[in-house]
């Protein structure tokens, strides 16, 4: 197997030419093409990632000194609340939905999603959510300050006395984003169940599709619980009901149940597609079939199911009775079984393969390393005695940033590079990609590793000032965060310049298997001239079977010689 470097890819001489959404104005229109919508999601999400990143650097700027001196306390509260909200609801969810939108129809051999117009409506709600959230900075009293989880009674406080305050706007935004996500989930589940190409049985689906399927099932059955809780909180805030207000006989812990019944599984809504991305990327750059395909596929669904019954581990310190704590500790640890199986499968896939360290592979490997680290810390956290000790400290903040930045965001970067040629029809610059990788990898560790010792020493989260003995690690973490901020510059540069001037990409630059690589880059408007008939396994690297019976393509590596 030759090692393809990106710069000297041989362009197939007769690339079929199709008209494709090349006009940039299309990306600002109400398009119903799943590929345009996918890119709309991705670009919108990335812009909000930068916004959330700026908020993060304000937080870290404040924390570089022990005193609370950069911003005032209320603004600081607004900052970490909005940072968390933006990162979760406007960066991770929408960007993953963007990839799912772009890839799922291509990967299953469909011409579009089942409900293209619903798809477009769901997308356009995302900028609305973003604008609403940003607008909350300008309502009396400023943005929401109760953290992204909005626990009452803190979130019920309304110091300005205005009916429309930051918390109300925040809740509306979250509710709209929930509606958009449910629309998306209905669309994905229908598309995956009903629109697969002939021959693509469930166990011939690519693992990314399996992951999206499992994740969207969580959305369908988890999000409504959050919506219920959010509606009740909104009524408490605006209509004077008593659901969560202890001063009126309500019960604030009930909100925590509503919230975590969704928000724990929501972690998997984010992480499962990242696992799917790993499963797509490792085989290509190791030139080996994915190890244990079926087990990995089923474990996605298992994770979705088990994750629905572990939420109480967030309530260990909320007066939960001991027997319940034990029960949920066990189910929580259970999730690590299917997850462990996956990690094992990826390592076995990479092991002994012909590894090509291109940027997507580097990011995927980096993300996997970060995930293993986060997983070990996570198992520590799931045990009640440890959690009771470090709850609400920077130990937790460090852990979830290894997941959310180290694994999810780096996994997203891997996906962006991997499918960039497919989406734009251009190659990116490998050197800039590698620079981006190393800055990100080093920055992430500098930023979030120090949070673990800080947490163990007892530094609480959500504070803007701290005891001087914590200063050293905080300085390191803040420097790491500025490095991370800088690391986006080579990325943005690379994306913009490559999209405009990059070398034209062939249909299949990585010599990957998968239906999306059979069509031109970027794919034509309706994806396939002829709906493919799938006849072989999704990861047949090293086997010489044709993938489809009816689509002939120059660039497919395993095309039988006829």
């Amino acid at each position, binding site marked *: 197997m030759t090692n393809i470097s990106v710069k000297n890819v041989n362009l197939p001489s007769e690339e079929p030419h199709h008209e494709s959404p090349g006009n940039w104005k299309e990306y600002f229109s109400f398009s119903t093409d799943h590929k345009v919508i996918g890119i709309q999601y991705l670009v919108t999400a990335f812009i909000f990632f930068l916004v959330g990143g700026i908020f993060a650097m304000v937080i870290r700027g404040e924390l570089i000194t022990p005193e609370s001196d950069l911003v005032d306390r209320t603004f600081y509260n607004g900052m970490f609340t909005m940072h968390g909200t933006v990162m979760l609801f406007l960066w991770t969810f929408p960007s993953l939905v963007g990839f799912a939108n772009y890839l799922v129809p291509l990967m299953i*051999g*469909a*011409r579009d999603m*089942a*409900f293209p117009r619903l798809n477009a409506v769901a997308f356009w709600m995302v900028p609305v959510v973003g604008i609403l959230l940003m607008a909350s900075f300008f309502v009396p009293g400023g943005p929401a300050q109760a953290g992204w989880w909005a626990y009452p009674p803190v979130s019920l406080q309304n110091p300005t006395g205005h009916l429309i305050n930051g918390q109300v706007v925040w809740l509306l935004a979250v509710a709209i984003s929930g509606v958009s996500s*449910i629309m998306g*989930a*209905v*669309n994905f*589940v*229908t598309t995956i*169940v*009903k*629109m*697969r*190409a*002939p*021959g*693509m*049985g469930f166990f011939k689906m690519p693992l990314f599709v399996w992951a999206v399927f499992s994740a969207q099932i969580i959305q*369908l*059955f*988890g*999000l*409504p*619980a959050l*919506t*219920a*809780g959010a*509606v*009740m909180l909104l*009524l408490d805030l605006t*209509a*004077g*009901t*008593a*659901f969560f207000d202890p001063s*009126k*006989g*309500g*019960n604030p812990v*009930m909100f925590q*149940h*509503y919230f975590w*019944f969704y928000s724990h599984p929501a972690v998997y809504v984010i992480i499962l597609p990242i696992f799917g991305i790993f499963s797509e990327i490792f085989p290509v750059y190791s030139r080996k079939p994915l190890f244990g395909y079926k087990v990995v596929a089923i474990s996605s669904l298992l994770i979705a199911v088990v994750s629905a019954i572990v939420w109480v581990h967030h309530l260990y310190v909320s007066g939960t009775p001991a027997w319940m704590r034990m029960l949920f500790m066990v189910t929580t640890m259970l999730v690590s079984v299917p997850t462990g199986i996956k990690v094992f499968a990826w390592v076995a896939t990479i092991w002994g393969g012909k590894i090509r360290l291109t940027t997507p592979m580097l990011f995927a490997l980096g993300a996997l390393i970060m995930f293993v680290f986060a997983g070990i810390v996570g198992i520590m956290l799931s045990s009640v005695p440890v959690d009771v000790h470090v709850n609400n400290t920077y130990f937790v903040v460090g852990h979830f940033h290894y997941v959310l930045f180290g694994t999810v965001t780096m996994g997203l970067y891997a996906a962006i590079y991997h499918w960039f040629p497919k989406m734009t029809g251009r190659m990116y610059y490998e050197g800039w990609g590698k620079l981006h990788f190393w800055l990100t990898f080093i920055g992430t560790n500098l930023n979030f590793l120090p949070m673990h010792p800080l947490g163990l020493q007892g530094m609480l989260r959500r504070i803007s000032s701290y005891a001087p003995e914590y200063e050293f690690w905080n300085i390191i973490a803040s420097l790491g965060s500025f490095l991370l901020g800088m690391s986006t510059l080579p990325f943005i540069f690379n994306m913009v310049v490559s999209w405009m001037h990059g070398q034209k990409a062939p249909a299949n630059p990585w010599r990957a298997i998968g239906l999306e690589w059979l069509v031109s880059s970027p794919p034509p408007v309706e994806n396939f001239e002829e*709906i493919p*008939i*799938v*006849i*072989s*396994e999704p990861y047949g690297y090293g086997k010489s*079977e044709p993938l489809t*019976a009816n689509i002939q393509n120059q660039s497919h590596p395993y095309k039988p010689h006829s």
Partner: protein
Amino acid sequence: MDSYLTSGESHHASGEHTHDEEGNKMFGFIVFLLSESVIFLSFFAGYIVYKITTPNWLPAGISGLEIKDPAINTVILVSSSFVIYLAERALQRHDLMKFRLFLGATMAMGSYFLLGQALEWNSLAFGFTSGVFGGMFYLLTGFHGLHVLTGIILQLIILVRSFNPGNYDTGHFGVNATSLFWHFVDVIWIVLFILIYLWQ
């Protein structure tokens, strides 16, 4: 290799479904209703927990809810499920007159239910802000009432559409979905009735 599937062999792995828009819509609608039912389930679960754990459950001065009128209401709403089923059947037989008749009857029964609920709300001595019970009561009945109203609007739409000759034979998704939605609203009400009125 075990299963070489070729075109058109397995039913749901078949490419024809790309064009089976009616089927997709119905499937999507069912998925949506499943998701929607989780909202109700969440409220129900909340109601149960609150009822068990709240010391002074009923607002001061209230000993319980009057059950006779809501029971009559329940009977009417549940019967309307059969009536809309008859309408659906009539449409399958292309009997448009009967279709409109039964549909109209369903709408009348649904409206009667809503009216009854409005009258009940009007007569109650507690409000939305009367403790957790008051909030839960109005939240549940109100949210359900909103669904009844939506159902009636859907019925109105398909009724109007049935007067346009081009519509009724191009596929029955609208009718089937409306009818399914109506059954869904009924089932939810039965649970709600048991929780709020029978379990006092």
